[in-house]
């Protein structure tokens, strides 16, 4: 175990390298670029024994990962924003093909106008593709989650791809200390990939041909079961990691000072880290506030949110995304899962930080105050000014 101080992107590249994918196919996009530069360097200097395919688009990056994964090897890619949107069709394809591809997405706003700063609309727009989605709040969590993700998705009860999200420039370009295990320890934790099916000339199968409604319906149901199965696997893997390496960021969610809380903040990504600071500050003033940080948005941590709402019926949900015409995705899904299950739950949705607008602990304190003072409505656009 050693401590390395590096940016979220270089840490993501290092984690990918230590997971030993055989094929990496990627296309550069700000602010993901240093991930693929890092990988390219590892391949070039022999630290990573992989084929690095410098594809001509993100659509091709995902297609190449699909081809490679179907041939039976571990794969990795990374993207952001418009790149992720261009991949959209192949994200569905990878999930329906049940290929355990792991990808880092550096959350960035969508144009026009061109905006390279942090915003989660890129990944939220992919929530129905069948991918597992993780949102990280520190570089350590990025490192741990990338390697954990392989173990989760390669489990035969899951076999779905996973997307690890980190905030553009907030984590991607910020150096933080990260505990890095020895390669042999990682190898013990994550054994070589053994595919459950592959394109094999000795056992020819046809994958993905025409499928009629009855069977297609079952395929979709199996995907849902796989997402459901992944809840348990995510927990097991996170806890195995904690035992082996000592770092832990929660399972599907991370609870922070929630035990006696009268108001609980729900947040994802780096806002979750900022919210911890806000919780500490507010508690110093005698107000009982906690944080339920959402690590996995897919599978959706329904049980955890319901359990929390039963203990504390005031939930302040911060969304760095907006489903235009409705509200933030996390707030909307939180309301939906509580409906008819926790009758007296109050959900206060806050849209904040779109296009990289800063969301500091001071802002989060102000949001809490609005709720406590009874000044927050169902959906608030915080900081419109």
């Amino acid at each position, binding site marked *: 175990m050693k401590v390395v101080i590096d940016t979220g992107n270089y840490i993501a590249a290092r984690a990918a390298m230590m997971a030993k994918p*055989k*094929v990496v*196919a990627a296309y550069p996009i700000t602010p993901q670029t240093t991930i693929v530069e890092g990988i390219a360097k590892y391949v070039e200097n022999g630290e990573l*024994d*992989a*084929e690095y*395919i*410098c*594809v*001509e*688009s993100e*659509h*091709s*990056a995902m*297609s*190449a*990962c*699909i*081809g*490679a*994964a*179907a*041939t*039976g*090897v571990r*794969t990795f890619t990374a993207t952001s924003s418009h790149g992720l949107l261009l991949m959209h*069709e*192949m994200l569905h*394809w990878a999930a329906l093909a049940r290929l355990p591809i792991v990808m880092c997405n550096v959350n960035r706003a969508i144009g026009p106008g061109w905006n390279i700063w942090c915003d989660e609309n890129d990944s939220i727009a992919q929530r129905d593709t069948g991918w597992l989605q993780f949102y990280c709040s520190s570089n350590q969590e990025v490192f741990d989650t990338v390697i954990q993700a392989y173990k989760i998705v390669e489990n035969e009860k899951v076999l779905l791809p996973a997307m690890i999200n980190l905030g553009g420039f907030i984590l991607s370009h910020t150096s933080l200390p990260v505990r890095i295990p020895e390669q042999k320890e990682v190898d013990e934790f994550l054994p070589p990939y053994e595919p459950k099916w592959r*394109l*094999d*000339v000795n*056992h*020819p*199968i*046809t*994958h*993905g*041909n*025409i*499928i*009629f409604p009855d*069977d297609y319906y079952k395929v979709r149901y199996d995907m849902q079961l796989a997402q459901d199965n992944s809840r348990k696997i995510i927990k097991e893997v996170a806890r195995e990691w904690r035992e082996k390496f000592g770092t832990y960021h929660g399972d599907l969610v991370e609870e922070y000072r929630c035990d006696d809380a009268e108001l609980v903040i729900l947040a994802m990504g780096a806002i979750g880290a900022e919210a911890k600071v806000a919780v500490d500050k507010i508690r110093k003033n005698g107000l009982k506030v906690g944080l339920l940080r959402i690590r996995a948005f897919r599978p959706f941590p329904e049980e955890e949110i319901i359990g929390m709402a039963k203990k504390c019926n005031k939930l302040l949900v911060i969304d760095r995304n907006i489903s235009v015409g409705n509200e933030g995705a996390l707030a909307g899904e939180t309301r939906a899962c509580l409906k008819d299950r926790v009758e007296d739950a109050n959900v206060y949705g806050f849209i904040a930080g779109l296009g990289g607008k800063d969301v500091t602990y001071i802002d989060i304190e102000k949001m809490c105050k609005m709720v406590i003072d009874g000044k927050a409505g169902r959906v608030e656009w915080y900081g419109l000014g």
Partner: protein
Amino acid sequence: MAIKDFPIEEYVLPGNAACPGCPSTMGLRTVLKALGKKTILTIPACCTAVIQSWYPYTSFNVPTLNIAFEAAASAASGIAAALKKLGEEDINVVVWAGDGGTYDIGLQALSGAIERQTNFLYICYNNQIYSNTGIQRSGATPYAAWTTTTVKGKKEFRKDIGEIIIAHHVPYAATACVSYPEDLYNKVKKTMGIRGPKYIEILAPCPPGWRFSMDKTVEMGKLAVETGAWILYEYENGKLSFNGISKSIAEGKYKPKPVEDWLKLQGRFSHLFKPERDIVRINAIKDHIRDTWEHYKKLASL
């Protein structure tokens, strides 16, 4: 190799869902006989996505990955990269795509895969239309041809994708036609000894798409070559050379048949002949064939 000497093994099995007279199955049957068992196929959206039959059945006896319309060449890049890491580079990585998936929506991925020197064989079976969706215009549709989206005949000439591929400096590119299985077989065989990106385009006359009788597929392909409307060539080591009847045409040993002999048999060109002969458009077709030949003769002399 003579057709009687083709391997007896079949990789396109009976029970497939092709239309009667389908050129795609004819071509693929020959291609897979040449390639043999150690082959992985990638197929984007195209007629063959349907022809292979439906889950949980297949009529193909080689591992086959279906992939999205524009993604065949990039998926093949992934397959080739994985096989390299697995030490299985003796397996043929093959894309089998239609003209829509090649000329139009898949061109970017194809260009990228070739530029990256992907070790694969890309085969376009060109029936000059989006046939799987029911006969719409593609970049490969010839001038004046009726399709459901060019109701009075296409106004533009087809894209010369062969030249686009050659401009990438591929080690091997060729055209073929389902009517000449030996020529196709030999060309596919030749690619197996060449590393890097290989491209073969097969003219595939489509009975419902071109509006001709389902027993005339072979004849229709032969007439395309005999009239000079389709040129058989190989591009290898930077040299272009003509094959078969196209070679005889280029050398002046075979006088091409009038293009009307080919056009008249196809319902998609019927508006060129009735109610009266459309001399302007027929002459434009003839001029285009002549110009294309002049151009390719120049390329062959380089």
